[in-house]
């Protein structure tokens, strides 16, 4: 047993350390909030003030006036929901086929799918843009979302998950004369809900936060811009208005934080299954 004093000391050191790290990580956010609540003339003043002399929500109003930010937020929401639905549907369908059916060339096809994961997105990015251009899908939400019908990682996860389900569920349904579609809709989908939820939060967040792909597909049309594109545009035109930029930042971050607080365990399982990317 350790003496009481030593244990108290240890505990104090622990809280000091972890609070120090927490400060380092949180201060940028606090400075963002503080800046967003300042008026133009209060942004660049020394010494700095963490709590503005006059708290003002002006920048939150201004940013909607100078830029169609509400539109961008709706766009972000639309493409994120669309991409998530497409990913879940396609991955769960193919995952079911790979897990529960035997067909010619199955293993070879799956290996081929896995092999494509080695190729970085930058390689396929240019041809994918060209495909969308041929399909007249540039500057459309469909164009942004459609390539997500092919997601090997999601497919793999659902496949593994279905394979781990007890065989008895399927046998019973087959004896009752259920079709493949009923198996998929009545047995597979309800039973793999947790992994679908994990996939959903990760895909939603990934799409909400993505910059490069929307920059390529959507930046030709201001009315189609997602939040990251909008923030980028505001930055290049009103780069000195830090209060407005920080207000826009906060608006763009909040929805994901809310989802995280509601669905924390799915984010964490997303990390453990390797889906969430840094």
């Amino acid at each position, binding site marked *: 047993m350790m003496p009481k004093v030593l244990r108290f000391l240890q505990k104090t050191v622990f809280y000091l350390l972890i609070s120090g790290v927490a400060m380092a990580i949180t201060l940028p956010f606090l400075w963002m909030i503080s800046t967003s609540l300042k008026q133009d003339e209060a942004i660049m003043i020394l010494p700095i003030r963490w709590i503005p002399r006059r708290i003002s929500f002006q920048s939150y109003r201004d940013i909607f006036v100078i830029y169609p930010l509400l539109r961008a937020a709706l766009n972000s929401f639309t493409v994120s929901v669309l991409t998530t639905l497409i990913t879940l549907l396609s991955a769960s369908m193919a995952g079911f086929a790979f897990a529960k059916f035997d067909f010619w060339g199955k293993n070879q096809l799956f290996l081929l799918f896995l092999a494509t994961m080695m190729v970085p997105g930058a*390689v396929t*990015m240019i041809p994918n843009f060209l495909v969308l251009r041929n399909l007249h899908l540039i500057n459309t939400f469909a164009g942004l979302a459609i390539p997500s019908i092919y997601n090997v990682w999601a*497919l793999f996860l659902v496949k593994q998950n279905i394979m781990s389900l007890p065989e008895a569920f399927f046998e019973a349904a*087959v004896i009752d004369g259920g079709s*493949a579609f009923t198996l998929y809709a009545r047995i597979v989908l309800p039973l793999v809900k947790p992994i679908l939820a994990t996939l959903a939060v990760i895909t939603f*967040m990934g799409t909400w936060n993505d910059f490069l792909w929307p920059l390529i597909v959507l930046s030709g049309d201001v009315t189609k811009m997602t939040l990251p594109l909008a923030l980028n545009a505001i930055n290049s035109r009103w780069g000195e208005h830090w209060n407005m930029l920080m207000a826009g930042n906060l608006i763009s971050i909040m929805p994901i934080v809310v989802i995280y607080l509601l669905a924390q365990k799915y984010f964490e399982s997303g990390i453990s299954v390797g889906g969430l990317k*840094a």
Partner: protein
Amino acid sequence: MYIGRGRRKALTVGAFLLPSVLGFVLFSLTPIFRSFYLGLTSWDVLQAPKWVGLQNYRELLASEEFWHVIKNSVEFTILYVPLIVASSLAVASLLNGKYRGVTAYKVLFFLPVLTSWVAGSLIWKWILNYRFGIVNIFLGYLGIHGPPWLTDKLWAMPGVVLASIWKDTGFFALIFLAALKGINTEYYEAAAIDGAKRWQRFSYITLPLVSPTTFFVLMTSIINSFQVFTQVMIMTDAGPAGATQVIIERIYRYAFQFYHMGYASALSWALFFFIFLASFAQWKLQKRWVNYDA
């Protein structure tokens, strides 16, 4: 396996596979071949692609810019990788402490991971401001005159690295935390009885036992280092004077701003080559230090 036979079954399987296979052909398989082909052409999008053989690759290898870009990526990697491994392992060790309130800290540490890179970059662009950024203000409290960070050729890349450490630590920390939680506490108890000091327990028990995770973190962070894009676009616009130009940023510019699709495609294969090489080397080296016994 279950339903129908012959044609009926083939149709069923085909229907379920259709979206993925279609996507595979349209957005992965043909693009890979097409990108390889484009890399061997000169193409400005307006006229038909012109076959030039290996000229793009020769040009690339002979260009000063390419090696400059590689140098920048290597600089990022050398600064970022050791720092991210150290910081995320340290944070994970803290989060592994059996004290009250640790879960609340975990939520805090995860906030940067939830933040988009665009938002994160904007925050750091402001924070690294020469005169009014809080980083230099804090350095000032310590009597250090902070550099102009993002507008300085020497300090721009370290600034980008700093932002990246802030953004990614929480992510890798949770990965390390899972590994730490998996270590059998009996090892520590046995070592404590033998009189092992804290740092001895850390270096002789913790480090070897989390080494598979360290390997994963190294692989991932090196691959990520070569694919940095958004932070550079927003924070420095690849400047000043090209000091933060990186591969993906070059690919983007050549393809979608200069319309040199052929050259951009060749660049993307160079990126593939470097990632492949780094992963292969790591894979070969892991025998020497990764411990899979536990």
